[in-house]
């Protein structure tokens, strides 16, 4: 029975969907029915153990960890979503133009992209943050820019492949404009590749956001964020392991869910 289940290739899809659904539900509860105000400080609840009132316990300021993990997950999700939107938008435009038209624009833009690509994304994000200053919006923009090169490379490769295909030639013969061919004809055809690289990009963004806020750049206190919670929890890791455990699990589930989903969608 178990063997049969493992052989099923859709297992990734099922588990991935379930995990993503759980995380989305978790965030929805955080938006509409958050149990406590995540910034409420209470001296009597300092390091309160896990209980029915506080399922994940309380932190060093007596704040409810469950509520903070909920809001932190939402914050991370927002940044990751923004990053992916920025990266995909510019990635499609740059990759589409360079791949479809080729020529001198392609040469110049790809050299620039290569130069930007030489930076590991964390380093590039740190570079932008040292210029823009730290904060949620700055981190989103910085990570978004950091993901443009990899997206545009993928899009460019797909456009290169597609532009000589029969359906594109037909569309050209019928008098469709370049813009129309690019966005109405080619784009829908390459979306399976895009979806899986968007998922990978999303995961990298979650990871990068968590790392950034762990370093103290990004979401500013007292607003909760998963990375910052982990860095605060590190001091008390032996005394109060649940403080570090739950934000950590939230990050892992978020990444795991989307990477399983990405794998499953990419296999088709």
């Amino acid at each position, binding site marked *: 029975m178990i063997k049969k289940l493992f052989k099923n290739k859709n297992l990734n899809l099922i588990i991935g969907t379930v995990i993503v659904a759980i995380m989305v539900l978790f965030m929805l509860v955080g938006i509409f029915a958050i149990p406590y105000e995540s910034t409420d400080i209470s001296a009597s609840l300092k390091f309160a153990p896990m209980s029915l009132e506080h399922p994940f316990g309380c932190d060093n300021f007596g704040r409810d960890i469950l509520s903070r993990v909920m809001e932190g997950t939402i914050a991370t999700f927002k940044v990751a979503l923004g990053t992916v939107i920025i990266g995909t938008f510019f990635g499609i435009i740059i990759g589409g133009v360079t791949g479809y038209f080729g020529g001198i624009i392609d040469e110049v833009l790809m050299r620039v992209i290569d*130069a930007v690509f030489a930076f590991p994304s964390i*380093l590039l994000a740190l570079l932008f943050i040292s210029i823009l200053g730290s904060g949620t919006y700055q981190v989103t923009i910085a990570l978004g820019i950091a993901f443009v090169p990899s997206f545009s490379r993928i899009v460019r490769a797909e456009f290169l492949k597609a532009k000589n295909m029969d359906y594109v030639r037909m569309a050209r013969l019928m008098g469709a404009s370049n813009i129309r061919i690019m966005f109405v004809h080619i784009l829908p055809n390459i979306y399976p590749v895009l979806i899986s690289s968007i998922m990978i990009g999303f995961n990298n963004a979650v990871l990068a956001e968590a790392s950034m806020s762990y370093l103290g750049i990004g979401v500013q206190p007292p607003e909760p964020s998963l990375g910052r919670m982990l860095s605060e929890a590190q001091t008390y890791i032996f005394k109060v392991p649940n403080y570090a455990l739950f934000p950590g699990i939230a990050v892992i589930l978020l990444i795991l869910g989307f990477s399983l989903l990405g794998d499953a969608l990419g296999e088709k």
Partner: protein
Amino acid sequence: MKYVLKKLVTMIITVVLVTFFVFLAFNLISGDPATSALGTEATPERLAAYRTQMGLDDPVVVQYLRWGGNFLTGDMGTSYSYRMSVSSMISEKIPVTLIMAVMSFLIMIVVAIPIGIYTAEHKDGVLDRIITVINQVVMAIPPFFSGILITLLFGQIFKLFTPGKYISYQDDFGGFLGYMFFPALAIALPKITMAVKLLRTSVLKEVKNDYVRTAYSKGNSSRQVLYGHVLKNAFLPVITFLGMCLTDMIAGSIIVEQVFSVPGLGRILLTSISNRDYPVVMAIIVIIACLVLLVNMLVDVLYGFIDPRITPDD
């Protein structure tokens, strides 16, 4: 040889582009260097004198060339907040970060390659399935979180090292390596999982080729086919990935250094970012970017030697 030369030229062009980009970004957006160096209370005359002295009124390209020339001779400017030369601040930290990256790279190779080959060899075996599932989960753990878990497990439960008690490589090299093993492990973990997955897929894809059937038909055992024929080809995509890993590890150390309080490049980079100490930030970013480009070029060259098919027209 021509191939190596070509790669070298491409690398130098990219280095120039990258450094110019960094220089421009800091020069245009980071405000007036004269005010940053002399403070906001400096008189306009002193600011103007400083500008002429440092050549801040010259065109950007001239300034860039001067800065680049100084950089090559080891003069990376003066830190705003510590009033020290940047090169003396960071020269001792570079080995720390580099050793950490190299250690995690070695850990990755030692662990990932045998596991990858094993799982491909025993595809769909019980152990293969278990490893694949564990792999998928470990892949989702951010390095800084696995760092925290490693501190908890090895530092506080097994007491194999004292968390936060960094041993300098100048005092006790053995102790330094012993301490650095754990941050290196934290950096290596997610890469190990990716390398295992990639190697497994690559071997399984390679096995489907015709030459494998030919090798079998000549009477080779499956071990001979795997080690003598398949692996050579299956390693090709993995090498590119390994090169990317090394560069990622250099960058990833910035974060993991914080978890284990290792005073490497990442530590100064972060304090300098929050102090707005631009000369330091600029120097570290340029150094890391150049290291990354160098590794990329070496991988390309290595690739050309291993796979002669690439050399002629690329």
